[in-house]
């Protein structure tokens, strides 16, 4: 389904722009990752279309979107695994296209799949990936030990990875990208398929990395993860970055902090034709049984409620809530992120 509104973003200086106009200026930017008008098509399918964003040192940028939105394709282009059809990627001021070796030295990638050697132990995996990232044997061994402690896996360090639980594998999978202490960490849905406790541990670890100055690009389709972990969020769907900003900025886009969920028989209803309705509300979603609207007028919620109870359709229930990222996604795409 096509977006209801024109693609727009809130840039790092707080302004709101069309997503395609965000083009960080290389010379002035201190960002550890700069993505400019990145595009990629697979045959007739436009997987990524003119995506632009930045990630600064110590920042966590969440790329939120449903499965197939273009998150992994975007990360693959940043990591140098896919060649973009158009656009540029700079990692630590090095172009991934023209100076990949330098860009990759600043990069750590945690793939969505568990990319580990199951026959090797956790420690051996860490040391191997450390060596591949350019560390000497002694440094790799030392840092592997540190990471095993930090990831709470020291007591299982000598076990083959195939004997690990899903959460433990995820942690080692994450650790393997950190041996060389990258300035930028790409995390592609790193918590898929693990229990809440393991997920919480990983998210906490990631916050710690950011606190130490590592820039993090985090893709997810979990709303709660994006809301709780990512100070800045980009919403992507059908390859397009529809909006980005802080959670508050994105909530503001759909009408401040009030959403009304009205239950009733909305079959055939035409909200646009109701007197005074469009001046105070905007429709986020309308189904046969439910109407989700955002209050656009700056007034007391009680006044909104009074107006809603006088609508020409009988309302059986009203819920007032703060807009979530899902509501933002709903407004931008007309469909639920969870669908």
């Amino acid at each position, binding site marked *: 389904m096509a977006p209801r509104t024109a693609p727009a973003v809130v840039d790092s200086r707080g302004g709101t722009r069309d997503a395609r106009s965000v083009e960080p200026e290389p010379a002035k930017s201190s960002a550890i990752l700069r993505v400019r008008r990145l595009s990629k098509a697979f045959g007739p399918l436009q997987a990524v279309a003119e995506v632009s964003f930045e990630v600064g040192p110590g920042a966590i940028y969440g790329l939120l979107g449903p499965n197939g939105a273009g998150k992994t394709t975007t990360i*693959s282009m940043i*990591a*140098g*695994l*896919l*060649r973009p059809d158009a656009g540029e990627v700079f990692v630590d001021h090095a172009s991934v296209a023209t100076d*990949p*070796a330098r860009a*990759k*030295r600043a*990069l750590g*990638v945690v*793939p969505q*799949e*568990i*990319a*580990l*050697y199951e*026959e*090797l132990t956790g420690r*051996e995996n860490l040391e*191997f*990936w450390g*060596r*591949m*990232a*350019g560390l000497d044997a002694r440094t790799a061994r030392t840092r592997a030990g540190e990471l095993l402690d930090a990831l709470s896996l020291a007591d299982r360090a000598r076990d*083959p990875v195939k004997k690990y639980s899903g959460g433990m594998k995820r942690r080692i999978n994450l650790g*393997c990208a950190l041996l060389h202490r990258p300035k930028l960490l790409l995390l592609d849905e790193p918590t898929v398929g693990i229990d809440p406790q393991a997920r919480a541990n990983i998210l906490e670890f990631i916050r710690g990395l950011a606190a130490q100055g590592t820039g993090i690009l985090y893709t997810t389709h979990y709303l709660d993860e994006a809301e709780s972990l990512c100070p800045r969020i980009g919403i992507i769907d059908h390859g397009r970055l529809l909006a980005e900003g802080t959670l508050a900025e994105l909530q503001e886009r759909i009408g401040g902090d009030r959403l009304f969920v009205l239950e009733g028989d909305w079959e055939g209803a035409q909200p646009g034709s109701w007197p005074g309705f469009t001046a105070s509300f905007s429709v986020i979603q309308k189904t046969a049984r439910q109407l989700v609207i955002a209050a656009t007028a700056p007034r007391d919620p009680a006044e909104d409620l009074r107006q809603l109870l006088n609508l020409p359709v009988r309302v059986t229930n009203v819920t007032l809530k703060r807009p979530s990222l899902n509501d933002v996604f709903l407004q931008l795409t007309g469909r639920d992120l969870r669908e």
Partner: protein
Amino acid sequence: MLGTLLAKDLRRALRNPVPYLVQLCVPLVITALLGLVFGGHSEDGGLGRIRFAVVDEDNSPLTGFLRGALNQDQAATRLEPVFLARAEALRQVTNNALSAALIIPAHFARDYLLRTNAVALELVKNPAQAFHPAILEELLRVVTTGLSAVKQNFSASLGDWRDVLSGDQRPTMREVSGLLDQTADRLDALRDRLDPVPVWFDKKQQAATSAAGKSGLGAAGNAMADIFAFLLPGLAAMFLLFLADVAMRDLRCEAQQRTFSRFCTLPPGPAIFVASKVVFTFLMVFVGAAILLGGGGAIFGIRWASPLILAVLAAALAVFAGGLLACSAALVAGARGAEVINTIGVMLLGLASGCAFPSNALPDFLRYHVTPLLPPAWFIEGVRGTQSGGAGSAPWPLAAVKLAALGVLLTLLAAWLFRRRLRRNAMA
């Protein structure tokens, strides 16, 4: 970097050795089975003496000569004739105590020496054995061909010989010398056709073999007659290619498990990763060859003529195998498709190269036009040629050079194909 990658692969192979062990065990098992079926192994490392019965129902001076010939020198080392009556010989053949019974019918010599009569020897083979009776049949074919040739060329004198040999009295020297004169005159008439002699016996080879028998290399000569030594190099060549397939298949596994993609996100780039797989395959094939040929030799009592030459040939085969399977990995991305194509391809290559059975048993077109072009055949001929002291085979250095050169070429081709694929993002 390359060392770390190899160490990783070797460690993984050691912790999950089953796929490799299967490829090492199968040829040993097949060699053992085929070897036992076709006659088995003897204490001297050869086929063993072929025990068979001679039933001489003619009992003439000519058959006495034939009986005596069976106990002479080389024949005595290979053949163990026992002289029995027909009924006893057939009973022992039935009881699997003998490989065959050669029956010389009554009046054989008389009929042979007559000018017109056709004569026949009778060979009763033991159906429970395959190899020894087959050898006896071939030997008998040689004997009968020789006898036929003599009969055709000396038919004019044979009647006189029959009279001399079948008389009641011992032939006088005068009678015999007269016949010898006639024979000599006939041979003189044939001089132009016999000089140069179309079929000759190489005295040098005879001398070398004889000397080798004293120095221990005689065992090598025996080894070529050993069915195990004959089978093992061929089967080893085919299953070493399968082993290479298993090793190189790891590249596709890594692509599927995304470890290859992960590696591609690191500064070294994919080229060294692919190169490490080729080197890993080379190592696995070389070690596999050492286990198969060395271990197989120990199991079956084969004494290889030159372990060093064998090692060189195995290394050359490993280079070829690495290059061949690297090309396959570069061309066929899908694991399932590659498994089918490689299995069928290696099997066809092996069979057409004479890995499973002698190449001279192949159809003429394959034997003369295809097999000589196939690299596994170079390896097999190199090994067998070395075992037989170089007789009848291309020299091993040529085989080794051809294998290694082709392997290098295939590796370079694979590198080019991989680079092209990676540029197209197919691997990612």
